[in-house]
């Protein structure tokens, strides 16, 4: 087989759901093992901090390998053959939450919700800015009504100068 053929084949394998899932599980397990490398293990009688985490990581590593093998042995073109991600909503929805989290304590609810709505709104296409601002306004009012006025939570509403 030519090199190009090999590369195409690898790409096809890497797009399979089970292959990716197996690799993801294994990566998480290896990360866990690396993070817990210094945790004292102890004995079964006196378990240290690292006993259970390391045990679980090894099990996860094994399971991940099984899923990976399962994925590699599937006939090509099966039902789980191709994974595509919706990058636009993925990035923007996550970004809107991150913006909210970074701003809510320093800049207050009004700014944080405004940022959340603006970033969140761009996760889909075809929405006017007026519509988005209106939505933000409604949500700010709702939030103030439920959490600040209703439940009496101490959340900063305006930026602290």
């Amino acid at each position, binding site marked *: 087989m030519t090199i190009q053929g090999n590369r195409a084949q690898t790409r096809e394998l890497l797009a399979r*759901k*089970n292959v*990716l*899932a197996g690799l993801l*599980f294994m990566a998480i397990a290896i990360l*866990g093992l690396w*993070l*817990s490398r210094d*945790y*004292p293990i102890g*004995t*079964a*009688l006196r*378990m*240290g*901090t690292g006993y*259970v*985490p390391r045990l*679980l*990581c090894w*099990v*996860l590593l094994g*399971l*991940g390998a*099984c*899923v990976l093998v*399962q994925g590699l042995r599937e006939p090509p073109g099966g039902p*789980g053959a191709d*994974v*595509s*991600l*919706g990058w*636009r*909503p*993925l990035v923007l*929805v*996550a*970004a*809107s*939450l*991150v913006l*909210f*989290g*970074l701003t*809510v*304590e320093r800049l207050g609810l009004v700014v944080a919700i405004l940022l*959340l*709505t603006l970033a*969140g*709104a761009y*996760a*889909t296409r075809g*929405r006017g800015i007026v519509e988005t601002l209106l*939505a933000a306004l409604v*949500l700010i009012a*709702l*939030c103030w009504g439920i*959490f600040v006025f209703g*439940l009496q939570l101490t*959340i900063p509403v305006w930026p602290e100068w």
Partner: protein
Amino acid sequence: MELLQNLALGFTVAMTPANLLFAFAGALIGTLIGVLPGIGPIATIAMLLPVTFHLEPVSGLIMLAGIFYGAQYGGSITAILVNLPGETSSVVTCIDGHQMARQGRAGAALAVAALGSFFAGCVSTALIATFAPPLAKVGQSFGAPEYFSLMVLGLIAAVVLAHGSVLKAVAMIILGLLVGLVGTDGNSGGTRFTFGITTLADGLDVATLAIGLFGVGEIIANLAQPEEKRDVLAKVTRLWPSAEDFRQSWPAVLRGTGLGSVLGVLPGGGATLSSFAAYALEKKVARDPSRFGHGAVEGVAGPESANNAGAQTSFIPMLTLGIPGNAVMALMIGALTIHGIQPGPQIMTERPQMFWGMIASMWIGNLMLLIINLPLIGIWVQLLRIPYRFLYLAILFFCAIGVYTVNNSAAAVLLAALFGVLGYIFMRLDCEPAPMILGFVLGPLMEDNLRRAMRISAGDPMIFLNRPISLGLLLAALVLLAMVMMPNFRRGREKAFQEP
């Protein structure tokens, strides 16, 4: 007559104006999210956990329970009128329910679904009241090894009975267990997987994880695919089913209720499994199976009764043993622990007001749902016209504010974003996130019981096999796993979740 006394106590708790209000709020929110596709009870309950923090524990539980069974009622409305499942548990209702609607029998289908659900709700409430106390007694006799084995069985069964790959589901459980370890180890005082972040030293809470995985993850998943075209069949005439409909549906309601009640108690059971199984059963017992798919009223009556029965009886293991059978119950346990209540068999004796009040409220809530559903059907239909692109902004907002208020920490919102991304990726890879929540909630309990068992036996793992009850539970788990490996069973399992 202890039962009647207990129920009387329950009704005095549930009938206080505040608790009636929370039961109503729960039922209303449940119906709302049941009607709206794209948001399910798991995400909603997770988002409302912070609110229950400020309520009495019993009021909070009453509201959360109302959301869960209310969603079963609401899901059928969308299934029948729009041919979209409002909830996964009403997927099968689409098949015959929507056909009935096309034939101009939408009113009859809705009424049969609601009445069947109500009947199932009453029966399963009675079942909880009858069977919970003896089960809790059994639970109280369990020691640490038995509890550990019971949790193993629960987790395995949850995986076997759920759909999708068993291997991946087990991996998701392990992942949940690992995430549950984040924070300070109660035993040795060392911190685990905290990356030096102070917020993480106290551990993650279930609301952050669930809001991220389900709330945020579902938003991304919904936005990534084009919005479904919704053809709302608005004309609902004649809400009352005909005599013929009644004659055909009441045996199906009985069968659905029975089947749902049994399947709900099993770990991994609950509403979705019950409704699929009930549809298959109706088709099997029908004299003329070819009617199914063309508006057979039994195809609505059976699954709709079953999903409500299953939703409610899944409270039994949670309330009596402290073991969650599905993700919603895991969140209920989270709600209890927020209030500092240790879930387990002692709840019934230590907090009879809460226990019986919640059970009584289930019956009241079902009655309310009947009233909310049928006469107000027009309003629910209108809600279906709200496009998702407005809805998701509100959901996103509730996710953010929910995570922030429950932890009082802005860093938790960032974590929820991370779990949202992970949740979406897992969904795309056909890894169900629900078992992860189960593992997360059971993890600390399992570790605790494992440690205690090891201390009892002086470090000898044989203790799990020497004790007869523990051995039996582990063997049952082993049998379940072996069954999944067998090709015949696997085929049957795959078939059970396919749309007929």
